[in-house]
């Protein structure tokens, strides 16, 4: 945590660039007004921040940038009143940021292992941070396999990153869409069906999974069938949040709070929480 | 002490609350434990009333439309404009649309303004004719216009019939009382087309076909006759007209009942027997916008009279009002043919009593409800509500002059030429009459913002500008005049109204011993037709209120937590929804939130499917109060919709 205390009161950041990702999803690059060089507070992959759109409200959003040497940005889908308001902002407008909060993805602990990323739709957003960080430290990891599912080719986001990773040695990229369309040369079908097909490594492997509930459950089942241990399957939960600091209780899952005990859980932990996902 | 006692003004239950008032703001709310009805309970709406009172969406200044735009004006300018415009229109072409949310004092003065100043009897509520039917039936039968039982006596009822009302959502605290009584051993039977929460909490649940309430109730009456369970002594001693009612029942056949209601005939029989054999019994049904037709209400009333469950402790026929002052509005003569306290305008002595007090000659010819005059009216004065406007957008937008009076912004303002703000219920004194005729006083707790006038002050100002001499110094003065002119309010004055208020007529409930007359069976016919589906339109579409819509959400939209709760469905189904059964969904090959089209003989609309086991396979359900979704569809079905809660439209639903 930096010396700037933004736990209760947001600090102000300026939107420096806005990128259209896919339909209803935009990426906002931010510069922090109160910090040297506009640099963000220190954070790690898998954490989230609370973002205030002034006059509309506040929402929780996961961090897609790598904590090492990446431009700070948020990628947000337009789903409700506040995210709608964010989408109407332009470059130069201000937002408020509290955080980062949450536990974050493991990094040091998984060095030397094979890493699998499985993402469905906008579940890609939180995983991007970890993928970037692993890419920046590629020599410390084994095989890196990335499986990205989307309904249509137009719904694959971070196209510029995908291009870069495809050319990264040691990165195995697998993109799929739900149904075949002309001009698509990648795989088709739901993303969990690819895992067996692509012969993923099982020993000494950690899998990161994020996506909508149906996809999530199918992927988990497939990974466990293939022999990956429950504690090596890592995911991040999304819940309705109001405070981010473990007080408002909206994000309670079982005996834990997603904001302070999560959002990152391994599957063994998720199973004991006693709720449906 | 910063907590000030008051009355919740959302629904017709009239719960007691304490508001946390500091300076000019309300910071919170707490239930009142010693209130005779609510006894320390509030519902989700009541617990968050402070959010509504703090809304920035209040009307803060009078407005006049100039070049198509509403611009700020003074009260003087706006009132002059209103009076000038109304004076130019013939009284037959002026309509007054009152609000069932206004206090008795405000409604009384609006009624007086219409009749004594602008010489028109075209005044009514938006929610005509729902509650009027209940009032006509109870008044015709007993002389008392309103609920015949008492909410305080729910705990003394052994048997309760809940007919077509989702009471734990519409009037949660009444639902709670019924639930408490059931837990202590009372038998509760629900007859409804949908599996509501009260249905789940009942001992018996009869999920009947849409439109079959009347035949189901009639059959219960027939069971009493056939099995000699009618209370013969009671009938002989206290009633008249029994024989002709029995005659009407004679044509009813068991097989017909089974087919039309779609429920196990034995269950209906058991319910009838339980009613007859109980020591005391009550019936609850919805009264208001979603009320029943006259025939169904008459049968409910007759059933309870023949069972001898009326006018005694723990007994009663109880029409439940959804809006806080619906009962009081009728009591204040908000109807084309009524003066206060259900006194008839056509009664010469009554009219001359009012005329004398007001110094005018009243026009004794009944007017018409503005709803029925759409297309003919040239000017409309509307207070606080906007349902009629929504249903009659075309006609209203063509009028020469529309005035809107209210505390909060709403859709009506879009059509208004003059907008006149009034104080909210915490900014002025006012009485409200709940569903059981309980008159309660909500006292002024904070100063209105920036010289905003109270309703009674504004109406006085209008009257004076129009040349009348009104001289009320307070809302209490208005009540003095009401009491003087209204036998059932004769005992009521602001200084006598303490916690719990006073019931009209000074009686807790209808008492057969003190009625001073015989109870008359209501006229009823033997037409038991139910709406039928056809091959072309195989599904019966029900129109009703919903858990998640409360009076068009006009007030809920201005809050945070109730908005979140009441808009739950709307967030999931942004274009509205039609509830269909899982079985039907499978047939149509649609899942939850898939787009579907509803086609009826009169019109069609596209919406999303909500798949739920709350409806039967051959029925579907849309909520009444969603202007975003159904304005057009409901306009196409305006005539059909007059039947209220029992309205059904045969439709077919297709996948889009």
């Amino acid at each position, binding site marked *: 945590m930096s010396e700037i205390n933004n736990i209760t009161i947001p600090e102000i950041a300026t939107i420096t660039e806005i990128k259209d990702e896919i339909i209803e999803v935009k990426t906002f690059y931010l510069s922090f007004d109160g910090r040297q060089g506009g640099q963000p507070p220190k954070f790690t992959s898998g954490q989230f921040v609370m973002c205030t759109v*002034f006059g509309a409200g506040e929402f929780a959003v996961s961090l897609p940038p790598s904590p090492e040497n990446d431009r700070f940005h948020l990628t947000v889908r337009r789903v409700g009143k506040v995210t709608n308001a964010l989408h109407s902002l332009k470059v130069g407008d201000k937002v408020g940021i509290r955080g980062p909060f949450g536990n974050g993805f493991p990094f040091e602990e998984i060095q030397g292992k094979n890493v699998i990323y499985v993402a469905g739709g906008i579940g890609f957003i939180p995983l991007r941070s970890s993928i970037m960080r692993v890419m920046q430290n590629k020599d410390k990891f084994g095989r890196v396999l990335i499986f990205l599912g989307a309904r249509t080719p137009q719904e694959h986001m971070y196209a510029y990153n995908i291009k870069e990773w495809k050319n990264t040695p040691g990165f195995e990229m697998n993109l799929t869409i739900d149904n075949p369309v002309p001009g698509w040369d990648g795989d088709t079908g739901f993303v969990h069906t690819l895992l067996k097909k692509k012969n993923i490594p099982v020993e000494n492997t950690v899998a990161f999974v994020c996506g909508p509930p149906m996809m999530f459950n199918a992927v988990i089942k497939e990974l466990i069938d293939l022999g990956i241990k429950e504690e090596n399957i890592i995911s991040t939960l999304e819940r309705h949040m109001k405070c981010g600091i473990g007080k408002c209780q909206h994000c309670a899952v079982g005996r834990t709070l997603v904001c302070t005990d999560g959002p990152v859980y391994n599957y063994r932990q998720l199973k004991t929480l006693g709720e449906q996902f | 002490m910063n907590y000030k006692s008051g009355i919740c003004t959302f629904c017709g239950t009239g719960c007691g609350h304490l508001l946390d008032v500091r300076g000019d703001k309300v910071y919170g709310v707490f239930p009142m434990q010693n209130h005779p009805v609510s006894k320390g309970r509030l519902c989700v709406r009541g617990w968050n009333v402070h959010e509504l009172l703090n809304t920035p969406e209040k009307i803060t200044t009078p407005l006049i439309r100039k070049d198509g735009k509403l611009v700020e004006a003074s009260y003087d300018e706006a009132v002059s404009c209103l009076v000038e415009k109304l004076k130019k229109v013939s009284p037959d072409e002026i309509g007054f649309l009152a609000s069932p949310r206004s206090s008795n004092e405000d409604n009384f003065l609006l009624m007086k303004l219409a009749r004594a100043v602008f010489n028109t009897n075209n005044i009514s509520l938006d929610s005509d004719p729902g509650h009027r039917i209940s009032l006509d039936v109870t008044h015709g039968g007993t002389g008392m216009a309103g609920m015949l039982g008492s909410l305080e006596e729910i705990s003394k009822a052994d048997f309760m019939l809940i007919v077509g009302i989702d009471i734990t959502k519409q009037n949660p605290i009444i639902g709670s009382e019924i639930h408490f009584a059931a837990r202590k051993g009372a038998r509760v039977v629900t007859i409804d087309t949908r599996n509501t929460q009260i249905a789940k909490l009942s001992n018996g649940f009869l999920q009947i076909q849409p439109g079959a309430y009347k035949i189901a109730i009639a059959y219960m009456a027939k069971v009493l006759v056939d099995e000699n369970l009618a209370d013969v002594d009671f009938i002989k001693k206290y009633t008249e007209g029994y024989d002709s009612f029995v005659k009407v029942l004679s044509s009813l056949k068991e097989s017909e009942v089974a087919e039309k209601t779609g429920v196990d005939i034995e269950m209906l029989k058991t319910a009838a027997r339980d009613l007859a054999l109980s020591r005391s019994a009550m019936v609850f049904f919805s009264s208001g916008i979603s009320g029943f037709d006259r025939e169904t209400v008459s049968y409910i009333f007759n059933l309870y009279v023949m069972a001898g469950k009326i006018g005694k402790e723990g007994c009663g026929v109880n029409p439940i009002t959804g809006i806080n002052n619906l009962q009081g509005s009728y009591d204040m003569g908000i109807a084309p043919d009524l003066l206060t306290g259900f006194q008839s305008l056509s009664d010469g002595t009554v009219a001359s009593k009012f005329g004398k007090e007001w110094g005018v000659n009243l026009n004794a010819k009944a007017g018409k409800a503005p709803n029925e005059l759409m297309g003919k009216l040239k000017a409309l004065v509307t207070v606080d509500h906007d349902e009629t406007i929504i249903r009659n957008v075309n006609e209203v937008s063509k009028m020469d002059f529309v005035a809107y009076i209210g505390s909060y912004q709403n859709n009506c303002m879009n059509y208004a030429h003059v907008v006149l703000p009034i104080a909210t219920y915490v900014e002025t004194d006012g009485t409200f009459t709940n569903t059981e005729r309980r008159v309660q006083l909500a006292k002024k707790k904070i100063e209105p913002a920036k010289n905003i006038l109270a309703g009674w002050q504004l109406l006085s100002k209008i009257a004076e500008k129009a040349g009348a001499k009104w001289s009320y110094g307070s809302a209490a003065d208005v009540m003095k005049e009401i009491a003087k002119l209204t036998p059932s309010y004769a005992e009521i004055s602001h200084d006598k109204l303490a916690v719990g208020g006073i019931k009209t007529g000074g009686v807790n409930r209808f008492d057969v011993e003190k009625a001073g007359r015989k109870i008359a069976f209501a006229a009823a016919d033997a037409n038991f037709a139910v709406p039928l589906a056809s091959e072309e339109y195989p599904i019966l579409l029900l129109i009703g209120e919903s858990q998640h819509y409360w009076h068009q959400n006009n007030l809920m939209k201005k809050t945070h937590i109730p908005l979140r709760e009441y808009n739950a469905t709307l967030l999931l189904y942004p274009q509205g929804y039609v509830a269909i059964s899982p079985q039907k969904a499978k047939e149509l090959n649609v899942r939850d939130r898939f787009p579907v089209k509803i086609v009826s003989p009169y019109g069609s609309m596209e919406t999303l499917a909500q798949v739920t086991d709350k409806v039967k396979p051959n029925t579907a359900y849309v909520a009444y109060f969603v202007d975003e979704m159904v304005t057009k569809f409901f306009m196409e079905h305006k005539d059909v919709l007059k039947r209220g809660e029992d309205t059904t439209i045969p439709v077919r639903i297709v996948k889009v």
Partner: protein
Amino acid sequence: MYLINKSQVSDIAKELQKEYQVYGPVMEKETKQCMFVKVDDIAELDLNAPIPALPPKHTLFPQFERIMSYQYDKKNQKVDIKPDFDVSKKALFGLRSCDLTGVLCMDRFFLGQEFVDDVYKNHRKNMFIVTNTCNVPFKQCFCVCTDSGPSAQEGYDLNLTDLGDQYLVEAGSDKGKALAEKLGLKKSDDSHKKAKADVIDKSIDKFDSIAKDNKAWISRVVNRVTTGLIDEKVWEYIGNQCLECGACSFVCPSCTCFNIVDPVTGPETADRMRTWDSCSYEGYSRMAGGHNPRHPVEDRRSKRFFCKLSYSQSKKYLRPGCVGCGRCQWVCPGDIGLPNVVTYIRRDIQK
């Protein structure tokens, strides 16, 4: 320990009023309802009033509270944020031990976890607490089952016990002791300690039998709630009766859920408000996209009782979340206050 004459007990409140805003039990005249509110006239305080309908929770965690306000100048792309906390010094006078226990639960929750809640801390940091031993329990009370009464054991500055013609005054902090000394109270002796024990014993005797005879009745369900070994049908039975009003959370001395909204106050200004919220509401856990992980009402109900009774949650409060005040039983339109829920769960265990 000290003594003060009954007629002089309000001197303590008067002394406190010099430095603090004094809150205490007051009977609302029209409704005869006891509320724990701010008093301007110390004479309004009533130490013999029934347990306040409104618990003192709102002094630390108000129903509707501004935590910041801001201006946003859209044209010039400027924002000005002002933190806006209540920092007034408050004294709570005549608090009952159940309600003090609620405050201690909130302290541990708001101040003792990973993050400290600044808003709560500002309410709490300058607070003076005077508790009052309950000598008459009310019909819904069961603090003897939740180890939170009838007399306060920790967390007070001064604790009063009615010994007939005088009050025993115990100091629980240096602040309390200093005040007692300042008022020149006379010292008590061992006989008074014994008298206090008698008062407590007599008070316990007056509890309803359900509370008295089954002192373990809450602890018996803690295990079940923690492990989740409760038949789903029990939760369904309870859920069917829930009218989703939120009252149980609002009146609970230890419930802390809140909602945050940013209502606009002008063309370019808004407040950030924090308001009470309840896990019984459907919208409470629903996400912006419409997915609701806790949609059925019985799931929401089981969540609340997990919070009040489970061991995992007790770790946060260092005791069970329920303080035995029984208010949820008063206000529940579904008749599923905590004592009833405990009864249903025990009935299921016994099967």
